[in-house]
C-alpha cells in the first residue's frame, strides 16, 4: 500500500471518482472529480494535533461503527495518503457555527475549509477496473436479528474486534455486556446461495467459509477461555492453495464443532441477551436449539453499489448480479465488453485474494498493450560524492515534529546532551525536519560543518528514511551514511505521560544512533544488465497466454514444450464453462496466434540446465542454448490416476472424468458410448483429492467439471447422481450451474470419508452403487451403467523434480511449486525473475490459468522492459580471507544467494550473489568466523549500539 503511495509512476487520487469517459482504446479521455479533502496533502504531516482538538465524535466506518472518530480524521492508522480529511457532514464549521479548532491547531496551515476539489482530465490508453465488492447487509434477513440483537455481529465486525489496533484492542467481548463470550455461533451463507424471500444472491461468495474457519482459530488464540465455537454450514468450500489442509487442521480443535445445516432463525433472550440458534443438523436429521453468547454472520459479497453508475460512465455492461460483465469470448476473466477496459478481482464477480491479485497483474499486462511506456524518470545528476574518509564527524538533527516530539521530549536538553557525545561535530533542531525548509537546512549544515555521518532523531525510518537519504545524496553525501532514530513513533507517542523518562530514553536512542553512525560505511547501488527476452516453459493454456502477452508487449519470447504440440490439456476438453466455449476452438485460436507471432516455439524440447540469475539466465535445452532475462514456469499438473479405488482397475465401466471428457468429445447430441446410450451414470467426487494418502488438498476443478458433465448427460436424458463430500463451486457462475443441475434433476448425495460409497459389480462390470444417505440414515442402492470418478490434480512429479533441481524454486508439502506469497505473490517465486502460471502452483481452472499467464507476463515484462536492474546495496558480502567454506550460509539461504566456489588449488570460498541476496543477514548470524558481513547491519554496528546502550547508561 505504501509502495503505491510512494512510486514515482503512480499518482494516487483518493476521494475521487470517474465522472466522464470517452475515446478509443489507446486514446481515452477520463475525467476524474477530486472531492475536497479540506486538508492539503503536501502540507499535512499526519501529526494528529487537529484530531486531538476536534470536538466532534462520530462512529468510525472503518471499525464498522464500533469505534469512534472525529470529524477531522484519518480513516485508519496505516492510511495512504497519511493525510487527514474533514467530514463536512459532521463538521461544526457550517454556515452558522464557527469552530475552527482544527485550523487553529495546525502548525502547518494545512487545513483549508475553502477547498473545492478539482476536476482532472486525464489522457489514458486503458482502464483497469478494480473496484471490488460490497458486503451484504445482513439486516435484510430479519430472522437472524442483525441490527436488532446486540450480540449478532457480521464477520467484518469480528475482524475489527480481532484486530489488535481495532476498537477493543483485540479483545473479544460481546457488545451487550462487554464480557468475554463462552460460546459463539458462526453462521455461513448469509446473503449467499439463496433466492427465496430471505436471501441475497444465488452465487457462493467463496471467501466466507475459510474466513470463518480462520476467525475460529483466531478467536481461540485471542481468548483461550472460549469454550465452544459452533460452525453452521452447508458445504465447506476450502478450494484454494492450502485451504483444505487449513480446514483439516481446524478439525483438530476441540472447541470447534461443525454442524451441517443452515439455521432458520436466531432469537434473543431479552434479559440475558443470550441467543438461541434454531437449526437442523442435516447429517443426523436432528432439530435443535443451541444457546450461544454471540453469533457471527458470514455475510456474503455483493456487487459494489456504484457499479451501475460506473458501468454507465465507462460504457460497459453488467451481469445479472450487477458485477462487471466479462466478455466470454476470450475465456479469460479480464476482458469487459469494451476493448481497452479491463476488470480484475471482485469487480467482476467473486474471487479470493490470490486470484484477485493474479487477475490484477493480468489486467495490467492487458492494459500495457494500449499505452506507450514513458521512459523511466531521469534521475537528477547528483552532486559529486564528498570525501567521507577520516574520523567520523557526526551531525545530529533533532526534529520537533511540531509538538509531536517537542511536546513530550525536552528537545533543548537533548540538544545539549547530543553535543557531548564523542565524535558529534554538530547538533541542530528544527520544527519539521522533513519539510523542504528543514531538509535545506540539513544540507547546508552538512556542507558547512563537513559532516560525514548524519543522525536524524525524528519519526520512523520506515516512512522517512528515503526522504532524508535523498537529501544527503543530493549534496554528495553517500545516503548510507545516514541513520535515523525513531523518537516519535517509538518514544514521544507512546510514553507521552512520562516526559522525563521519555527524554532519558531519547538520550539513549540518540547515543546508540550515533554509535551506529560512527561505523556506517558508504554503499553503492549496483546495476546489472538485463537480457530483454523471456523463456516460457510449458505450452499449455497458461504458458501460451504468458507467451502471447509478452510478445504483444514486444518482447522476445522462447516457448518450450516437452510434447510434440502446443495446447496442453485444453485440447482434450470439450467445452469450457461458464461461457460454453469450445475448448478445442479456444486452444486452436491460441495456437494459431502463437504461430502467427514472433514467439519462438520449440516443441519436443526439454531443458537440460539453467544457470544465472534475474536478468541473466543461461538456458541449455535439447534444442540449443540461449540467454533470457526471465522465466515463466507453466508446466501444468497431472490428473490423478486411480488404482483400485472404487474398482477402477477391475471394471471397464468405472472411468475417470477425463475419460468421460474424451467420450463426450467425440459425440454430438445423444450420448453414445460404444454404440449405447447409458441410462444411469453416477459420479464420485474427491478421488485422489482431500486424502492424506494421495493429495491432502482440494483439486478445485473437479466439482465444476462434474457439474458441467452432469448437465450434459442429464440434458440427454441420462439419470445422473453425484456422490460428493462438499460441492465446491469454484469459478465464475459455478454455483449457478450447480443450481441448474439440481433443477434438471441431477441428484446430489453427500458421503463422508469414513463411509465411502461401494461399487458393486457382476465380476466384469459395475452395476450399482451403495451409499448411505446420511439424513435418511438409509442405504441407497443406485443403478449405474457408468461410474465416473472425479480424479483430482497432482503435481507432475518428473517435471517438477527436474525443474526444482534446475532452478531451486521451492515446492510446498503438496508437491506443487510454492508461490512467493500465497496471497500477495501468487505468480512470483522466491527466485527473482522466475514466475509461475497455471496449475504448476496448484490446481486451477482455465480462466484462472489464463489470468495467471497474463499476470506472469506482466511480472516478467516489468523486469525485461528495462536495460538494467538496480540492486539494493544493503546485502550480505563475504570477506574471503575469513571464509572457511563451511557451507552454513549455503544451506540456510532460501534465495540461494550464497554458493561455494572453487578458487583453484582445491580451496573453496563462499560467494554471495548480490543479485539474489535480499539482505536479511541470517547467513551472517550463522557464519562461524564472521566472514559474512550484513551491510548496514554489521556485527560491529550492532555491537557498538549494545556497548553504548549498556555501558554508557546514565
Amino acid at each position, binding site marked *: 500500500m505504501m509502495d503505491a503511495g510512494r512510486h514515482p509512476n503512480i499518482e494516487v487520487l483518493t*476521494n475521487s*471518482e470517474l465522472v466522464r469517459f470517452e475515446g478509443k482504446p489507446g486514446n481515452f479521455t477520463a475525467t*476524474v472529480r*477530486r472531492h475536497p479533502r479540506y486538508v492539503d496533502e503536501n502540507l499535512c504531516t499526519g501529526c494528529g494535533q487537529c484530531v486531538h482538538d476536534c470536538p466532534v465524535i462520530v462512529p468510525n466506518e472503518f471499525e464498522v461503527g464500533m469505534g469512534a472518530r472525529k470529524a477531522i480524521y484519518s*480513516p485508519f492508522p496505516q492510511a495512504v*495518503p497519511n493525510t487527514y480529511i474533514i467530514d463536512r457532514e459532521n463538521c461544526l464549521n457550517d454556515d452558522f457555527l464557527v469552530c475552527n479548532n482544527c485550523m487553529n491547531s495546525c502548525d502547518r496551515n494545512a487545513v483549508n475549509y475553502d477547498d473545492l476539489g478539482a476536476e482532472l482530465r486525464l489522457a489514458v490508453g486503458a482502464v483497469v477496473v478494480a473496484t471490488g465488492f460490497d458486503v451484504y447487509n445482513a439486516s435484510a434477513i430479519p430472522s437472524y436479528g442483525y441490527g436488532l440483537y446486540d450480540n449478532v455481529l457480521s464477520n467484518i465486525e469480528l475482524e475489527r474486534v480481532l484486530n489488535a489496533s481495532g476498537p477493543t484492542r483485540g479483545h473479544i467481548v460481546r457488545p451487550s455486556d462487554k464480557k468475554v463470550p463462552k460460546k459463539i455461533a458462526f453462521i455461513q451463507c448469509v446473503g449467499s446461495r439463496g433466492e427465496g424471500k430471505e436471501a441475497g444472491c444465488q452465487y457462493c461468495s467463496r471467501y466466507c467459509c475459510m474466513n470463518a474457519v*480462520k476467525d475460529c482459530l483466531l478467536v481461540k488464540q485471542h481468548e483461550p477461555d472460549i469454550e465452544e465455537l459452533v460452525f453452521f454450514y452447508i458445504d465447506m468450500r476450502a478450494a*484454494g492453495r492450502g485451504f483444505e489442509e*487449513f480446514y483439516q487442521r481446524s478439525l483438530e480443535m476441540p472447541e470447534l464443532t461443525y454442524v451441517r445445516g443452515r439455521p432458520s432463525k436466531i432469537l434473543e433472550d431479552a434479559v440475558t441477551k443470550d441467543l438461541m440458534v434454531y437449526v437442523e443438523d442435516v447429517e443426523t436429521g436432528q432439530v435443535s436449539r443451541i444457546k450461544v453468547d454471540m453469533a457471527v454472520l458470514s455475510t456474503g459479497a455483493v456487487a459494489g453499489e456504484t457499479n451501475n453508475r460506473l458501468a454507465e460512465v465507462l460504457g460497459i455492461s453488467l451481469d445479472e448480479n450487477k458485477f462487471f460483465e466479462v466478455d466470454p469470448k476470450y475465456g479469460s476473466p479480464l476482458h469487459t465488453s469494451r476493448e481497452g477496459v479491463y476488470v*480484475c478481482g471482485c469487480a467482476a464477480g467473486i474471487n479470493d485474494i490470490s486470484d484477485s491479485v493474479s487477475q490484477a497483474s493480468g489486467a495490467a499486462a492487458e492494459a500495457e498493450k494500449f499505452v506507450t511506456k514513458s521512459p523511466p524518470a531521469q534521475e537528477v545528476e547528483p552532486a559529486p560524492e564528498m570525501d567521507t574518509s577520516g574520523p567520523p564527524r557526526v551531525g545530529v538533527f533533532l526534529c520537533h515534529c511540531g509538538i509531536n516530539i517537542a511536546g513530550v521530549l525536552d528537545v533543548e536538553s537533548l540538544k545539549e546532551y547530543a553535543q557531548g557525545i564523542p565524535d558529534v561535530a554538530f547538533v541542530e533542531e528544527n520544527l519539521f525536519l522533513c519539510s523542504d525548509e528543514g531538509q535545506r537546512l540539513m544540507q547546508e549544515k552538512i556542507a558547512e560543518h563537513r559532516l560525514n555521518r548524519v543522525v536524524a532523531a525524528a519519526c520512523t525510518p520506515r516512512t522517512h528514511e528515503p526522504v532524508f537519504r535523498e537529501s544527503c545524496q543530493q549534496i554528495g553525501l553517500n545516503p548510507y551514511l545516514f541513520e535515523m532514530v525513531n523518537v516519535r513513533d517509538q518514544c514521544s507517542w507512546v510514553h507521552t505521560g512520562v516526559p522525563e523518562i521519555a527524554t532519558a530514553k531519547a538520550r539513549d536512542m540518540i547515543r546508540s544512533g550515533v554509535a551506529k553512525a560512527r561505523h556506517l560505511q558508504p554503499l553503492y547501488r549496483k546495476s546489472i544488465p538485463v537480457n530483454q527476452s523471456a523463456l516460457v516453459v510449458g505450452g499449455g493454456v497458461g504458458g501460451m497466454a504468458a507467451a502471447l502477452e509478452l510478445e504483444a508487449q514486444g518482447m522476445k519470447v522462447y516457448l518450450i514444450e516437452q510434447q510434440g504440440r502446443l495446447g496442453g490439456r485444453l485440447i482434450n476438453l470439450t467445452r469450457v464453462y461458464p461461457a460454453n466455449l469450445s475448448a478445442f476452438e479456444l486452444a486452436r485460436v491460441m495456437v494459431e496466434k502463437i504461430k502467427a507471432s514472433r514467439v519462438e516455439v520449440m516443441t519436443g524440447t526439454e531443458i537440460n540446465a539453467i544457470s544465472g540469475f534475474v536478468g541473466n539466465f543461461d538456458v541449455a535445452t535439447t534444442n540449443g542454448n540461449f540467454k533470457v532475462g526471465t522465466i515463466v514456469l507453466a508446466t501444468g499438473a497431472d490428473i490423478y490416476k486411480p488404482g483400485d479405488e472404487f474398482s477402477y482397475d477391475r471394471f471397464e465401466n468405472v472411468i475417470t472424468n477425463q475419460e468421460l471428457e474424451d467420450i463426450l468429445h467425440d459425440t454430438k447430441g445423444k450420448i453414445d458410448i460404444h454404440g449405447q446410450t447409458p441410462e444411469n451414470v453416477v459420479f464420485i467426487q474427491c478421488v485422489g483429492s482431500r486424502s492424506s494418502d494421495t493429495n491432502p488438498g482440494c483439486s478445485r476443478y473437479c466439482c465444476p467439471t462434474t457439474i458441467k458433465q452432469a448437465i450434459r448427460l442429464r440434458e440427454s436424458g441420462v439419470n445422473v447422481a453425484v456422490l460428493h463430500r462438499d460441492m465446491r463451486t469454484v469459478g465464475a457462475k459455478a454455483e449457478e450451474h450447480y443450481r441448474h443441475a439440481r433443477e434438471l434433476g441431477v441428484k446430489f448425495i453427500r458421503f463422508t470419508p469414513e463411509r465411502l460409497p461401494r461399487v458393486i459389480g457382476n465380476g466384469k462390470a459395475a452395476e450399482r452403487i451403495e451409499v448411505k444417505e446420511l439424513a435418511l440414515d438409509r442405504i441407497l442402492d443406485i443403478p449405474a451403467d457408468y461410474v465416473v470418478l472425479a480424479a483430482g490434480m497432482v503435481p507432475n512429479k518428473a517435471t517438477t523434480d527436474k525443474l526444482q533441481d534446475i532452478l531451486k524454486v521451492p515446492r510446498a508439502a503438496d508437491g506443487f511449486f510454492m508461490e512467493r506469497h500465497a496471497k500477495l505473490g501468487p505468480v512470483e517465486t522466491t527466485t527473482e525473475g522466475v514466475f509461475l502460471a497455471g496449475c504448476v502452483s496448484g490446481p486451477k481452472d482455465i480462466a484462472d490459468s489464463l489470468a495467471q499467464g497474463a499476470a506472469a507476463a506482466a511480472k516478467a515484462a516489468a523486469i525485461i522492459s528495462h536495460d538494467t536492474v538496480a540492486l539494493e546495496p544493503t546485502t550480505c558480502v563475504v570477506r574471503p580471507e575469513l571464509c572457511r567454506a563451511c557451507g552454513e550460509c549455503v544451506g540456510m539461504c532460501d534465495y540461494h544467494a550464497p554458493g561455494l566456489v572453487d578458487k583453484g588449488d582445491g580451496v573453496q570460498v563462499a560467494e554471495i550473489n548480490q543479485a539474489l541476496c535480499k539482505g536479511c543477514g541470517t547467513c551472517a548470524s550463522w557464519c562461524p568466523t564472521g566472514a559474512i558481513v550484513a551491510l548496514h547491519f554489521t556485527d560491529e554496528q550492532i555491537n557498538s549500539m549494545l556497548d553504548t546502550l549498556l555501558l554508557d547508561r546514565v
Partner: protein
Amino acid sequence: MAKQPGKAGAVLVLGGGITGIQAALDLAASDVKVYLVERSPSLGGRMAQLDKTFPTMDCAI
C-alpha cells in the same frame, strides 16, 4: 496538486484496494504512468479491514 494531464500513455486504475494497488504497481514497474483513483479517502480497500488472512495467517495490511 491539480496537475494538467500529461501526454497520452497512462493507465487509469479504478479502485485502491488490493487488486487496484497490485495492478498499479505492476504497471508502474513496467514504466507505465498510472492514475490510481479511489473513491474513499485512503487506499487499502477491504483487505485493510481484515485482521489476518488464511491460510498463512499473515497480517492483512
